[in-house]
């Protein structure tokens, strides 16, 4: 019963958040200067043609009325028609979702799989050469922006080692393995700074946990250093990281714009950028709603996962 209540409460919060975001997004386009009808027809359009188009687009109706009719059609899955391409927004977005999903999935996977062993090894040799050396390298990696790493990758793996054709994006519906291989490089570029941050966070989290009393208890039972690490310390140390990783997933989706540009990948970031430039507001609104949905869902997932790891959070 209490579980059902908690679920309903969580869902309520999610819906409320999305509603607020939808209103904010819609209102923002009302406030910023620029007339979609004008930008579609060009500055030399006659006032009559302009008025006709504005009427056709529903721009002459009051704001609240337009907001609710848009919200209603969104709920039915109809996000409108792109102003600059004339296609339905959903068809434009759906074809790009797999690209962004794989990019984010790979980056997150790389971040998690690489940062855990690196942080564990660093704490094993805490204060010794390996730890200090890795710490410096880690700091360096953290400060390199993804797009710059992307440019370096393009130059090194693309142009020198010729592992992939720079800018030669392969579509997933034509050649899936080729697509996955191509997407691997931008994924690493996106993952690098996140991975470095994870290492830094996890290293200090492990060191903090290692000082706790239960660790001494674990040693007193005859555990070796590595057994103490894997059976006791790591699970406790990962709790703050779960939140960080879930937030960085949301961040990767919204922040992939630059890396998509560098690797010429048609993901969500690119569509967002071009639609903002063109004032193609149905597209912008839909993409932002999608990002908001991901943020909210990731939040929920990290909550559930944290509670799974740390039983104290349940009460």
């Amino acid at each position: 019963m209490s579980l059902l209540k908690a679920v309903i409460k969580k869902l309520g919060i999610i819906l409320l958040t999305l509603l607020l975001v939808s209103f904010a997004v819609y209102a923002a386009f009302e406030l910023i200067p620029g007339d979609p009808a004008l930008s579609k027809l060009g500055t030399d359009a006659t006032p009559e043609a302009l008025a006709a188009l504005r009427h056709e687009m529903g721009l002459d109706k009051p704001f609240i009325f337009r907001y609710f009719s848009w919200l209603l059609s969104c709920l039915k899955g109809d996000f409108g028609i792109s102003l600059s391409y004339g296609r339905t927004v959903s068809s434009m977005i759906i074809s790009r979702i797999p690209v962004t999903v794989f990019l984010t999935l790979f980056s997150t996977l790389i971040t998690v799989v690489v940062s855990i062993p690196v942080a564990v090894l660093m704490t094993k040799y805490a204060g010794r050469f390996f730890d200090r050396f890795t710490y410096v390298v880690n700091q360096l990696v953290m400060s390199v922006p993804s797009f710059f790493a992307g440019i370096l990758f393009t130059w090194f793996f693309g142009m020198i080692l010729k592992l992939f054709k720079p800018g030669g994006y392969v579509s997933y519906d034509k050649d899936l393995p080729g697509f996955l291989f191509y997407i691997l490089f931008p994924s690493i570029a996106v993952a690098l700074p996140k991975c470095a941050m994870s290492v830094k966070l996890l290293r200090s989290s492990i060191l903090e946990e290692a000082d706790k009393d239960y660790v001494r208890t674990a040693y007193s039972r005859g555990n070796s250093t590595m057994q103490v690490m894997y059976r006791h310390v790591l699970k406790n140390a990962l709790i703050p990281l779960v939140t960080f990783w879930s937030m960085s997933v949301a961040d990767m989706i919204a922040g992939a714009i630059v890396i998509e540009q560098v690797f010429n990948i048609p993901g969500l970031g690119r569509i967002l950028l071009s639609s903002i430039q063109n004032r193609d507001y149905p597209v912008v609104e839909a993409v932002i709603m999608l990002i908001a949905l991901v943020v909210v869902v990731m939040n929920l997932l990290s909550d559930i996962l944290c509670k799974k790891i740390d039983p104290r959070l349940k009460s």
Partner: protein
Amino acid sequence: MKILSVKDLTIEFHDHKLPERAVEKVSFDMDEGEVLGLVGESGSGKSLTAMAIAGLLPRKRLNAFGEIIFEGKDMLKIPRSELRELQGDELSVIFQEPMTALNPTMRIGKQVEEPLFIHHKELSDAERKAKALDWLEKVELHDPERVYHSYPHELSGGMRQRVMIASAMVSDPKLLIADEPTTALDVTVQAQIIKLLLRLNLKQKVAILFISHDLSLVKQISENVIVMQNGSIVEKGKTKDVFDSPVEEYTKKLVAAIPEVRF
């Protein structure tokens, strides 16, 4: 039969510029099934002595010299792997803070079983669980099955200390080091834990090294007592003798300061 023999145990901090002696030339013996009290004020080196015997000194900060012979092995000289074989199997520890001594994200059952998991690989999961449940019952926890599946934060301080005792006793150790096991508990729970420890000593024949700053407790629990001050032994002998007719000035002061409380 002697089970523990400490000879000229000296412990130094080596992260200071000058080596600082925390424990100096401490020597004593323990017989099988004996309850030995180790008393002294904080900073007297009693806990460090206990941790050295348990093989739990933080080696990065401390150096220990001398001999600690347990089961015929010198705990200070044998390799780590050999030491680990004794820890949790022949020699167990319970600590002062039951609130933090258990892993918050691991179920009680798994923690109680862990010594068996490490030292008695021949046991099946079911056998391990049976032993753990048996021990949860022996330490007088109601509804062992429920406790087995609980997490530490769901139990009170007294219950957690009982869990710690169950975990320490599950592999039938010869020596139990109890480092201020009741200091963090309130007085009624304290009395229950003391009675439990005495019963275990009687039934399981486990020797107990009982470390405490509380002389009235030590008076009740141990046959023999060692009084430490500033890292050295001031006086040792039968508890009755030491408390009734203390020889050293420091012990006299300590004994005079005992408030008369009887359980």
